[in-house]
């Protein structure tokens, strides 16, 4: 990570140990362990209700925990108030103070710690300039567009030069195009500031493109932590595999028997270690499938022409499987074809536990 010369870039090491959260009889988090390096852009990814936002709020000090410890820069902050952790947060709804101008919104955290007025003015204008809202300082949140509100919330977080940024689905209220643009800007901003950032999202494409490392949450547990490309290449379980990718990975029930892989009623000879005999789930990415003379029998169900790519929905032994290609395949709906894949491009998971099998 490139340092900006700011003292803050050396700080911001996060450690969460055995975080458990219960809500009455319901356990929301089953023991979360995380380590985040200073300056890292770390994403908490998962479907709704998986516990990622709860984890973020526990990190912020906004939510109590039923067990475990939170450490910031080696110090135990589990019992510290949110205001005492030197953490800044951008809420999903932005939580801007509607009765204050943009300037006052951004200045608020500085005023709360009795920063001298000249210092405030300079810091606010600096932060506003970084997110390109310096021309909106005298407006109220109600007069701003969604994107501008989001930048104001960002500026309010940046201005404090905290040691940790927490972002709770900051892009989910923006329209699709704005989301893509803002995503890139966020990443560049973070690199420039070098502040450790924890980012919650349910959009796997978002997490994959901007994060240094991702923690995939499933039902209150971390299913996998790693760099986006590593998780993508080697998902640790069928659930994680199904969550990533667009369209997501195809999963088919299969069986390993005597060195061959039996799927969709045919035996496939696959040139890789298959492991012990038993029921498995076969995972193949849409981009790894192709229509071939031999392979799994399939019937073309639907063809989605997206312009530069085509997605072919195929019925393979009762399961809908998606194939993605850039060339337009020479098939029509209703045709009977075969689909095949390269040996190294398939993933195997235990059928019952979903755990990854093999390498």
């Amino acid at each position, binding site marked *: 990570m490139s340092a900006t010369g700011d003292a803050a870039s050396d700080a911001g090491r996060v450690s969460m140990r055995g975080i458990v959260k219960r809500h009455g009889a319901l356990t929301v988090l089953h023991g979360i362990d995380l380590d985040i390096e200073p300056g890292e852009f770390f994403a908490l990814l998962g479907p709704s209700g998986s516990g990622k936002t709860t984890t973020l709020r526990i990190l912020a*000090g*906004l*939510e*109590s925990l039923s067990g475990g410890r939170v450490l910031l820069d080696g110090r135990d902050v589990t019992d510290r*108030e*949110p205001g005492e952790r030197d953490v800044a947060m951008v809420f999903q709804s932005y939580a801007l103070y509607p009765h204050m101008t943009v300037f006052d919104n951004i200045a608020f955290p500085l005023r709360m710690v009795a920063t001298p007025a000249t210092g405030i003015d300079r810091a606010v204008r600096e932060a506003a300039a970084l997110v390109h809202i310096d021309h909106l300082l005298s407006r109220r949140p109600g007069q701003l567009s969604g994107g501008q509100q989001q930048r104001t919330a960002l500026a309010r977080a940046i201005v404090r030069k905290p040691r940790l940024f927490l972002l709770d689905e900051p892009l989910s209220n923006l329209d699709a195009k704005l989301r893509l643009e803002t995503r890139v800007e966020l990443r560049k901003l973070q690199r420039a500031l070098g502040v450790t950032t924890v980012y919650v999202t349910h959009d796997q494409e978002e997490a994959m493109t901007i994060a240094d490392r991702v923690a995939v949450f499933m039902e209150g547990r971390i299913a996998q932590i790693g760099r986006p490309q590593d998780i993508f290449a080697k998902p640790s379980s069928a659930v994680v595999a199904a969550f990533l990718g667009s369209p997501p990975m195809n999963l088919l029930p299969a069986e390993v028997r005597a060195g061959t892989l039996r799927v969709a009623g045919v035996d496939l000879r696959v040139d890789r270690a298959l492991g012990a005999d038993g029921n498995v789930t076969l995972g193949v990415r849409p981009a790894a499938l192709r229509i071939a003379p031999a392979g799994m029998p399939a019937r073309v169900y639907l063809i989605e022409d997206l312009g530069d790519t085509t997605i072919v929905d195929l019925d393979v032994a009762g399961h809908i499987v998606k194939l993605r290609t850039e060339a337009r395949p020479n098939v029509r709906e209703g045709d009977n074809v075969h689909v095949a894949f390269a040996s190294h491009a398939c993933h195997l998971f235990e059928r019952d536990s979903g755990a990854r099998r093999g390498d």
Partner: protein
Amino acid sequence: MSDRRERRFALLLFAPALLALIVTTTAPLVYLAWTSLMRIDLSMPFLSGFAGTDNYAKMGGDPRFWNSLGLTVVYTATTVVLQVALGLSLALMVLRIPRGQAALRIAAILPIVLAPVVVGLFWRTLVLAPDVGLVDVVTRALGLGSHNWLGDPRLALISVIAIHTWQWTPFAFLVLLASLSSLPPDVFEAARIDRASAWQRFRHITLPLIRPAIVIVVIMRTMIALSAFAAIFAATGGGPGTATEILNLYAYRTSFTELNLGYGASLAIVLLAITLGVSYVMFRVRTKRVVA
């Protein structure tokens, strides 16, 4: 993050009000209950002393008590029903003339902001006075003759009901108008496409949707009607005789006109019990239906 500091802060903020409430409501209530067990006769002090449940026993055989109870029921039920029926009808009619609504809101505000005692006095003098009051002028012009609206025992109750209804119907009107205005139009459009008549739309869509507002209005107005005092007191004083003496007024007169505070206190306790009972029933009805 909820913790000791937050809880302490919350208690700090709540404590003054809690203390004030206990001092001004709960403690007096206890004292009231105690008083109801006493015989306090300010006109004959030498008879004062502990009386146990004598007061309550006496109540059972007191015809004036039963009279006041009956009047309370009639008064409360009639005014609330009238307020809701009139308020709803008027709101429904006014809905379709958006431009008149501003002027109507101002007109509706006037009865509500006036002091009930002034309203009572006003009706007693300018409206209901025999010969020169507004109502008499109208009835005379219509050939129905002149009547003693407040002095005739048969008419007095009707008159005070009219006064109360006049003053508080605007409240029901405004609340129901707001509720009706907030209903989403597409539900009605869907119903029209489904060929529902105006009455059917009202019965099956409008009414259920504004039910919560109606319930709240009923609850609030019932509470007010049970403790209505000033208007009746100003208009008739509870009379003629006991023709408009609802339980409220009976308790007052017993305590402060006849100076029999012990008995008055017991009457007040009964009124309190009735009020609590009615509100309990109403809240149960409300929450029960909401869950269903």
